């Protein structure tokens, strides 16, 4: 199936968003570009499955995420890293034009579990609704909401912007527990 000119343009227009997501997921620009390329190839060979009028971006992000996770699972088996500490050590290579200001943020972002990171990226950066993000990640809307919330709390703690409400036992509770 040949992509029509407008569809070709739409695919091209989706590339920056796909790259940003892939770089933020994988932590490596080279790997991210391979991921985007595979996503475009996969999309082109499955164009007949895409329903016109539905969200092309969400469809492409779903493909990219699936590819990332199947690749990631493979790599995890290869290097025997069941707890994902290898992924935690991955860092985004500074790109041309990138500022050091974001270095702390990136480091913190990559300390998040990958399911929380991707949920936060989809909702907080890529502009998807909770419903769209749930569909992209094949999970319930409530799961996405909870992942995003946990991701924000963890980031705030890592970046020391945490004014998280302290829900530790207050004095009244302590007094009650002591009888």
């Amino acid at each position, binding site marked *: *199936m040949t992509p029509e000119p407008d569809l070709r343009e739409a695919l091209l227009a989706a590339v920056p968003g796909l790259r940003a997501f892939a770089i933020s997921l994988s932590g490596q620009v080279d790997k991210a570009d391979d991921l985007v390329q595979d996503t475009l190839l996969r999309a082109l060979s499955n164009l007949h499955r895409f329903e016109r009028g539905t969200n092309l971006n969400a469809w492409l992000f779903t493909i990219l995420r699936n590819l990332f996770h199947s690749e990631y699972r493979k790599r995890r088996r290869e290097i025997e890293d069941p707890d994902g500490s290898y992924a935690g050590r991955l860092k985004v290579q500074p790109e041309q034009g990138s500022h050091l200001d974001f270095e702390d943020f990136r480091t913190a*972002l990559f300390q998040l579990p990958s399911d929380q990171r991707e949920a936060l990226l989809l909702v907080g*950066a890529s502009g998807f609704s909770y419903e769209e993000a749930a569909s992209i990640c094949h999970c319930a809307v409530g799961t996405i909401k909870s992942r995003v919330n946990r991701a924000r709390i963890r980031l705030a703690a890592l970046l020391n912007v945490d004014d998280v409400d302290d829900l530790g036992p207050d004095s009244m509770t302590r007094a009650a527990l002591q009888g």
Partner: protein
Amino acid sequence: MTGDKGNKLARALPRTPSNDKLGTKAKLDSGSQKRIGDQLRAMYDELMQQPVPDRFRELLDQLDRKKEGSQ
């Protein structure tokens, strides 16, 4: 005497939302949430503004031609 006091507090206890599962219901205040969101979008915008590598444009062009030839 002291026993009565303890009972009163015990009855009041279930009304306090934070007496178990410490921290699991923690929510960020809106200021922190905004700061996290701003930093995330700033980092992301920078990635979005990077020029699209030629390989993707070429890929779509090549596929156009290949498909025309083969199918």
